[in-house]
């Protein structure tokens, strides 16, 4: 087991380095960093001097390693647009995105799994059909459209919820700001979190339903019935457990994409998070921010993948056994 974990961690580090090199390539070779940083009036001589100071004339390998080393210390350089350290900019906005992603994840799981289970167990009920229809809409509607729909209903027509911003936030510690502790903060969270969660929720619901239907067809379920076990024992002790194990993997991976999709939600609701920052960087070709965001996302996904892999192996006894068998 330890060997497995170590191998996976090493693989993850490998991926991070690969992504880091891509980020470096972007950073260094897309456009000219010097031209982005200085104004038109700067003379050629000054540019050359700057180039030398920043080490841009060193061999590529050296620059790459320097970049990676700095990245490992969270030093991503200075933004072209804002002339501020990228790390600070990202740090200021991270709490907003993370809180949003967290609430959306919880929501999508808490709603998606029960709906999936219900529509598998009661395939032909009216409620199931409703869920099916909702899931189709959830998958079809682009996230931004859902957001606009919610805004139209709850802000324009009903006036219940704010349509932009985070509301009032409370500072916790040197770095974190939270919207959980104020009423306006919570109100502001409702629509963005729902929008973000909707797509994931429908995905989870469909997955759980499909997986559960598949499991209910299995021989061991038939044998359990032949032994006279009660329906609830069959559904919840046998079927559900077997359903959730493969679902864990996919859900874990999907959770990562919530952070990616937050870009869209943050735009619709003018939510001051990392996603918005990234989008601006794309529009303005602010390479340092783009590179840093890429690394951050990669790190997050790689970590999530790692955790899910380990979780999967520890939950399914067959995989655990095959790992033990791989010694020697």
């Amino acid at each position: 087991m330890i060997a497995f974990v170590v191998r996976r961690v090493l693989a993850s580090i490998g991926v991070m380095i690969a992504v880091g090199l891509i980020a470096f390539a972007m950073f260094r070779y897309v456009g000219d960093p010097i031209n982005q940083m200085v104004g038109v009036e700067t003379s050629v001589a000054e540019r050359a001097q700057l180039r030398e100071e920043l080490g841009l004339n060193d061999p590529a390998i050296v620059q790459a390693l320097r970049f990676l080393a700095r990245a490992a210390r969270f030093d991503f350089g200075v933004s072209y647009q804002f002339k501020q350290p990228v790390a600070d900019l990202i740090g200021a906005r991270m709490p907003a995105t993370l809180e949003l992603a967290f609430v959306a994840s919880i929501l999508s799981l808490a709603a998606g799994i029960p709906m999936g289970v219900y529509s598998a167990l009661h395939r032909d009920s009216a409620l199931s059909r409703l869920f099916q229809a909702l899931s189709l809409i959830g998958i079809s509607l682009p996230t931004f459209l859902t957001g606009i729909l919610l805004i139209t209903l709850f802000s324009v027509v009903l006036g219940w919820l704010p349509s932009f911003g985070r509301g009032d936030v409370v500072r916790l510690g040197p770095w974190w700001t939270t919207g959980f502790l104020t009423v306006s903060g919570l109100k502001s969270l409702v629509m963005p979190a729902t929008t973000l969660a909707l797509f994931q929720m429908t995905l989870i619901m469909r997955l759980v339903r499909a997986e559960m239907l598949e499991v209910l067809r299995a021989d061991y379920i038939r044998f359990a019935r032949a032994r006279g076990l009660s329906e609830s024992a069959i559904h919840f002790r046998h079927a559900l457990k077997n359903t959730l194990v493969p679902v864990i993997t996919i859900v874990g991976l999907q959770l990562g994409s919530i952070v990616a999709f937050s870009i869209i939600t943050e735009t619709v609701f003018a939510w001051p998070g990392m996603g918005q920052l990234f989008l601006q960087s794309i529009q303005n070709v602010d390479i340092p921010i783009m590179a840093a965001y890429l690394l951050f996302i990669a790190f997050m996904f790689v970590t999530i993948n790692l955790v899910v892999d380990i979780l999967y192996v520890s939950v399914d006894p067959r995989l655990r056994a095959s790992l033990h068998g791989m010694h020697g």
Partner: protein
Amino acid sequence: MSRADVDLAKSGPPPPSLVARLRDNDLVASFLSSKTTAAAGLIALILIVAGLAAPLIAPTDPFNPAANFLMDSLTPPRFVAGGDPRFLLGTDDQGRDLWSAILYGLRISLMIGAFSVLLGGAIGVALGLIAGYAGGWIDSVVMRIADVQLTFPAILIALLLDGVAHALLQKSNREETAFLVLVVAIGLSFWVQYARTVRGSTLVEKNRDYVQAARLIGLSPARIVVRHILPNVMGPVLVIATINLAIAIITEATLSFLGVGLPATEPSLGTLIRIGQNYLFSGEWWIVAFPSLGLATLVLSVNLLGDWLRDALNPRLK
């Protein structure tokens, strides 16, 4: 038929081709029997035709700034108070006739969707066939790249590729190259799914009798792959392609909505919605409403078709 083909036929039939299965009664019966599917098919067809015929049926050309009715910007739809009979669905902030803009927007959304699916599909199928048939280090490399790309959601990849492409092409050309960049960015974000499926099928087909026979006869690998294996792995590819079409359309709309897709001078449905959102609170609801409706209907019907196709082609459900 050449001698080689005749010998091939004797070694046992390959599995029934997609066309043969499509002609099977069950499929047509199931399509017609479900009212929603038939309706979805019809609607999708109408939208596709309307979009493609946009230059012919739209009253104005929204991509030509000279044709905009700047004086009449922000006019409500014809059937609402204050409307103008010239503008069925009203005008936007640039004075564009919304009805025309939606038609052209449909057109460009469909085109980008179709081309990106074709691009992604072509690359994916090709790489999948090569990786599956050749095996060895080629297989490992392709699959490794695929795995890394798969850890990220497609939209992020598309966004990144879009940004990098524009950075490389310099800002001044953004509007001209938008179409191409979008097709490439979205297409490249999708190839992995095709590659994986096709690789899997290729691995299975590689060991079947008719392929072994072809190799014994001495047919070149390229010939075997293209003429014999390819037709037999196309089934699942078609299903993926239909699903991907809807996703491609959504991705393009999203990128346009975010401001990194099609610009306001050649608006797609996503761009129109972006513009419209700014006017939501000031009362010009139509700029958001109608493009949204169009987009939602398009994607919904394509999705329903994809669902039906997937269920119908799934051998296990038969």
